[in-house]
């Protein structure tokens, strides 16, 4: 009997795992499929919709998942989640097979609350902990052009697999915000259900459901085996009151963190010179929060100019969020491409159609006449002017100094970097794209 029930689940899980790979690879020729992959997560869909104050089409999928999950406990984890499937199988060969984590409080729930409250303040603080983002991130590895990027895109899933191997299913059962969010959905539905039925059948049942609420809020399980073996056990966490207090602190922390992070982001941007975000990026104060580090944009970029940030450009808050770097010859932000903006599941990069993308200003190109070969009379060079796809660079003749140098028309320059990647001065470029400053536009 158990075997019969278990086998189909394994098959569904495997099918979903393969399906997930097909979606994020992406093996389908549809360039925006990866975006829907992360949007399936109701946690991401809700947080990002609140933070962006807008709802994307993909939210419909998340709504379906949410409704099913509110009736069938941790349904998503058990059947659909590819990260869950991977970690569950890892735990089978792992070192810790006992359920020591059953005493750990349900952190995932507080993470979910903290993030959702943060998203009301415009900054979904820990949205990047969503397991679907963590799953899709390493698929951007084929666009990694340096060892740092390889490490950064695989860091999340690598850490989870490693931790699960060493410590068992702690992440899935206790920390994952998506599982915590599902628990809360289930819980809320139950409470609501109880209240509705209590009105009709009297108070007797509400007592019972209260007890169940305690049980749910404490004991949780990612896997079927865990659920079944756990169901009889006592909950790990304390009373409903204890739980409510924690929820309150999580909410307060979410709001506070969101406000601090936005302030830090805004101040950082004012000082930034080399920080460039991919096209369509929301303002810097919210970007690091809305970005879930799924690396879809890194993956989508045909020029391989989008890299996860090592923290050098935007600090700890922006760690592993995408930055644009024009560090490879001939690779710039193509005037014929808007791929990265089409695959962002949270709207950290606003989807831009081609006309909008062509007008999008990513940064500003500035010439350093101290090292420009033309200005110094070293070479017959007008590489930047020739390369500019927007016709923004003209060789200017300075009659007083009797020298020429490239002049950038800022109303035409989009910061695509074509000039920078063809500038022949070596490591230090005579023309490069700098962070856009409001004063200079």
């Amino acid at each position, binding site marked *: 009997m158990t075997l019969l029930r278990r086998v189909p689940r394994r098959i569904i899980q495997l099918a979903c795992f393969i399906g997930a790979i097909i979606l994020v690879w992406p093996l389908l020729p549809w360039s925006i499929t990866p975006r829907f992959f992360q949007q399936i997560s109701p946690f991401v869909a809700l947080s990002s919709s609140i933070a962006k104050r807008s709802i994307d089409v993909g939210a419909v999928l998340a709504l379906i998942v949410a409704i099913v999950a509110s009736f069938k406990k941790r349904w998503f984890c058990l059947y659909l989640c590819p990260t869950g499937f991977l970690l569950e199988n890892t735990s089978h060969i792992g070192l810790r097979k006992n359920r020591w984590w059953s005493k750990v409080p349900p952190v995932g729930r507080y993470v979910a609350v903290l993030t959702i409250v943060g998203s009301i303040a415009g900054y979904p603080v820990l949205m990047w902990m969503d397991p679907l983002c963590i799953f899709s991130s390493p698929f951007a590895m084929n666009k990694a052009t340096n060892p740092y990027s390889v490490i950064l895109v695989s860091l999340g899933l690598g850490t989870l697999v490693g931790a699960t191997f060493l410590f068992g299913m702690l992440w899935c059962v206790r920390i994952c915000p998506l599982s915590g969010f599902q628990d809360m959905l289930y819980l809320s539905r139950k409470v609501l259900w109880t209240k509705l039925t209590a009105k009709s059948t009297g108070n007797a049942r509400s007592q019972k459901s209260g007890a169940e609420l305690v049980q749910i809020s404490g004991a949780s399980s990612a896997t079927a085996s865990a659920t079944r073996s756990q169901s009889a056990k006592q909950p790990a966490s304390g009373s409903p009151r204890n739980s409510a207090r924690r929820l309150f602190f999580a909410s307060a922390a979410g709001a506070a963190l969101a406000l601090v992070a936005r302030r830090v982001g805004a101040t950082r941007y004012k000082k930034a010179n080399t920080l460039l975000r991919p096209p369509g990026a929301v303002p810097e104060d919210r970007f690091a929060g809305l970005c879930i580090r799924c690396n879809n944009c890194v993956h989508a970029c045909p020029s391989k100019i989008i890299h996860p940030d090592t923290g050098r450009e935007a600090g700890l808050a922006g760690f592993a969020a995408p930055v644009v770097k024009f560090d490879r010859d001939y690779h710039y932000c193509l005037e014929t491409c808007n791929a990265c903006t089409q695959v962002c599941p949270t709207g950290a990069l606003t989807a831009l159609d081609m006309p909008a993308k062509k007008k999008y200003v990513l940064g500003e190109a500035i010439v350093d*006449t101290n090292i420009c070969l033309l200005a110094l009379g070293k*070479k017959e060079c007008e590489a930047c002017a020739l390369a500019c796809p927007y016709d923004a660079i003209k060789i200017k003749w*300075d009659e007083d100094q009797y020298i020429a140098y490239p002049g950038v028309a800022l109303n035409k320059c989009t910061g695509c970097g074509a000039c920078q990647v063809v500038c022949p001065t070596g490591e230090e470029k005579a023309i490069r794209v700098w962070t856009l400053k409001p004063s200079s536009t």
Partner: protein
Amino acid sequence: MRRSAAAGGLFAAGSLVPVSALANQASGEETTQAGRSPAKVAGGKVVQPQRELPVLHKTSVLVVGGGCAGTAAAFSAKRLGVDVTLVERYGYLGGLATGGLVLGIFPLYSRENKQVIWGFAEEMMKKLDVLKYGIIDRHKAPIYPTFDAEVMKYVLADMTLSSGVTAFLDCWGVDAIVDGRGGVRGAVFESKSGRQAILADIVVDCSGDGDIYAAAGAAFEKVKHNIGLISRIGNINEVDMAPTRGSEGLQRQHEHTFVGKVGTGRPSMGRVSDFNGHAGNATPAPHVNWLNMAGPVGDALDVANLTELELKHRLGTWSNVSKLQNKPGNEQVYLTETAPQLGVRLSRLLDGMKKLTYDEIQNGAKFKDVVACSGAYALSPEFQIPYGTLVPSKVENLLAAGRCISAEFKVADITRLIPVCWATGQAAGIAAALCIQDQCKPRNVNVAKLQNLLKQQGAYLG
């Protein structure tokens, strides 16, 4: 006339000039004296009376312009055994490469640092290789070679004397000679010998400005580009000079005569800060650098504009060298020379059978009638140049080569450069020789045969 007769004698000493050519020169002397007819003022207008022009010379292939394209065309055609005449406006050959002091052989390489222009270009560089202070930075891609103008002049003079090409220097092509059906039959020249004609079966316009095709009535596009004046400075600090040789990468090449400060953070927009004068770039001659100048955008077909620039550029060069002399370590620097020729970049672009577009070169278009290849520059990878860009769409018996070929402005901005002019010149020269051998019009040239001959002469076609 006396001068060209003397030149004829010199070629005769080399015993490579056809007897018929000498006979024509001799007969030219008589007709010159007879054809005097000064312009007259009549009714407030200056009128040149109709007159018969003396025929200085008859030839099979006439190459107008002895710059990079012209010399490549003339010597390559001559090798196929046809009668070739080369006419040059200045007293030396090489055009902008020598008289314009454009000493860099760029763009020579593909993005992968593979040399993609061979044939005549490689031949020239090999000749420079063996001459003292002839050329530096050979085979050091992406750094491109730099040669010495005087050594180049020597090489070209030597080649002219030994090749059997009939040459007329100090001789300015001013008009085309066309027959009743619009086919070009030769060109008219002004020189100290007066206005004379050279009759030819095929004319190759390597004038740079497309003077001959414009005169013959071919369609063209008139464009404007920066016009500068290059100069050379001597006595530049030896410490500055050292790193070019044997150094790796452009960064080093860039540093060795560096004036400004590198990496001082975000520069301010549109301001030239503390400009200290050019130090230019190394040349093969020790302690000598060449200084490029972009100059303002000018009309290369307007003599007033050219005159203004010739004068102002010399003042500007002087002022920049003075600034350099004020920099510690550069006090002993002096201006060696300003180029005899203005650095005209583009003036006329032919409307050929094929106009090479920027999209095509960006997308690496392949052409069945490819006759030349250009190196990579900016976002453009190395690209093929089809034969159609050298053939005017309307006029017969005429080919163009060098900077004035049929291409969009942004493409011409690359094809105007020294090694590409060598490549298109060589293609046009061989095509002209084929027209003579196969008795056909330039547009009907057997392209497969042309490509084979180009390859036999060492050219790379991509």
